[in-house]
């Protein structure tokens, strides 16, 4: 059994707004093992990015309520002093953001911005040492001619190269956990593949654990070990990647998978969609948050409308759904309740 580097337990995040309390994350628990790649998948507003920000300790505004526990190597992040979290940020735990075009400060050379991440955590480092370290990490992330490019400004780089710079910033201190928040969404398809390859290679050589936040199931299939599916702030399924594509446990996961075009059958069929829209976080439906959009609710009945299903273990995976094992199998055989 590998060791958990990150343990999230009963994490709840809510924002006080003028319209009321918004529950962005609700009672979320998961763990991340050393060297593991975990994907967090879900639609916009499902709480993926808020979860990432909580782990980074970035949610400090006065109108945010945080409950539960986030432990990084046994260190409790929630409620820790800002100065203590700061020591972890960029060293033990690093983050790559979605848009490389806006992630870099336009006013400073990339070498300075990469070096800063090292200097902050190595206060005694000489200029020479920082520079060598920067060139080394730039080489590692595949930026050509690092000795020259170290003095370039971000706008002199392409989108893909900028994302490599951002990854270099994240990796310069060999973090134990890397959170990548949709790292390829803003990039061209060909560049996406390069960046994913790079991340996979780096992950293999350094044994860094990665949390990959994405809504791209293609990316998930390519480089992930386990998948956490979120809906309206809750975890609704946690499953091995090899199982999730063939036998998902939750109707929502099933819906997400059906909404992906498959090239295998070669038939020009209409793309399946999940009917309806994700609920407003101000007004989450009673019972299972997914029930108004769920095609399989009929098999369960009233229960879905009344009581929130807890995340329970189904075989070696977890699901928050009242469907029985038999019904899950029926669902995966494309059996659907009759629409009356």
């Amino acid at each position: 059994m590998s060791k958990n580097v990150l343990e999230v337990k009963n994490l709840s995040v809510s924002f006080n707004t003028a319209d009321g309390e918004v529950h962005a994350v609700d009672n979320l628990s998961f763990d991340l093992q050393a060297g593991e790649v975990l994907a967090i998948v879900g639609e916009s507003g499902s709480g993926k990015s808020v979860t990432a920000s909580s782990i980074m300790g970035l949610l400090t505004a006065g109108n945010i309520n945080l409950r539960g526990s986030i432990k990084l190597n046994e260190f409790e992040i929630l409620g820790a002093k800002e100065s203590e979290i700061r020591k972890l940020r960029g060293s033990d735990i690093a983050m790559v953001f979605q848009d490389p075009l806006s992630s870099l400060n336009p006013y400073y050379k990339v070498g300075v911005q990469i070096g800063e991440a090292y200097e902050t955590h190595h206060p005694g480092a000489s200029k020479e040492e920082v520079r060598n370290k920067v060139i080394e990490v730039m080489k590692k992330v595949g930026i050509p001619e690092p000795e020259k490019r170290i003095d370039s400004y971000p706008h002199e780089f392409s989108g893909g190269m900028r994302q490599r710079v951002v990854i270099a910033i994240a990796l310069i201190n060999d973090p134990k956990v890397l959170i990548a928040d949709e790292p390829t969404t803003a990039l061209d398809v060909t560049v996406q593949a390069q960046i994913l390859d790079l991340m996979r290679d780096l992950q293999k050589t350094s044994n860094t654990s990665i949390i990959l936040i994405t809504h791209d199931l293609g990316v998930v299939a390519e480089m992930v070990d386990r998948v956490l599916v979120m809906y309206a702030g809750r975890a609704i399924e946690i499953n091995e990647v090899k199982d999730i594509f063939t036998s998902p446990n939750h109707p929502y996961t099933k819906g997400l998978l059906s909404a992906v075009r498959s090239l295998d059958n070669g038939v020009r069929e209409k793309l399946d969609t999940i009917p309806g829209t994700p609920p407003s976080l101000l007004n989450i439906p009673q019972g299972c948050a997914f029930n108004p959009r769920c095609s399989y609710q009929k098999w369960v009945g009233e229960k879905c409308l009344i009581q929130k299903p807890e995340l329970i273990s189904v075989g070696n995976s977890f699901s928050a759904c009242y469907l029985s094992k038999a019904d899950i199998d029926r669902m995966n055989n494309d059996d659907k309740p009759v629409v009356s």
Partner: protein
Amino acid sequence: MARFIVRRLTFMIFLLFIVSITAFLLFSVLPVDPASLSCGQHCTPEKIAANRIRLGYDQPLIQQYLTYMKGIFAGRNYGEGAQAFTCPAPSFGYSFYRGQCVTEMITNALPATISLTIGAAIIWLTMGIGLGVISAMNKGKFQDRVSTGLAIFGLSMPTFFIGLLLIYIFIIWLQIFPFPSYTPFLDNPFKWAQALILPWFTVAIVSAALYTRLTRDGMLETMSEDYVRLAISKGLPRRKVLVRYVLRGAITPIVTIAGLDIAVLLGGAIITESVFGLPGMGRLALNSVTDSDLPVIAGITLITAFIVVVANALVDILYAILDPRVRLES
């Protein structure tokens, strides 16, 4: 960068040329006749006609313009024989009302205005940006409300009112300062500062408000930038993020507006100078308008235009230094 500067300077000269023509044309259509103004008490039509010839107003407009422009570069001679005199280059004409070369009058007025502007700018930038930073860092809290409130108070008070208020409080009521009488800096720096401190604050209180707003809004906008989030997630200390990332991102528009504000102020702070009796460009302009002293008004117009255009060019160059992206585009 060098090419950028050269191009900017060429454009600047072209702009000044246009301003000079416009100003000259405007003054030539005014119903004020300098020849009769400078005629004195016992005026006759003959005297006016002679005056007109002496001053060159009988010449065609284009000739007058060329003479005027030549004067700026080569100086200009007036009158003949024993009455002849010269206004050395750069000559902006001669005030017959005051009996002085315009250039001399302007150079006499400039030090007071420059002193006022520089001092006031230092105070309003410190005050404005300082309050803006405090506001932005405490958005929505008590400190934010107080700074924003102060800024709006400053913005909504007329200059003359603040000036008179300060005179009343500090000179008449508390008697901290004597009534200001301008002393050149080189004569007595202490008295210089003593005379200027209230005018400085008068200008600063009015101007700071805009900078508080600009700094506050600029910083709040920058704070939500991805690169600031990345800076925080690098583990940089809060102060470093604030100065190197947030303030750095907000400062560029402030530099632009400060440059132009300072330039306009150098053309004369008419109200402040009048309230405090400072012998600067503003008071000179006001007096010249009251006296219909056209050559002086024309001179001040050109000098002010020159200062604004130069400041504009400097701001552009500074902008290119501050923002590496601008450098590339040029």
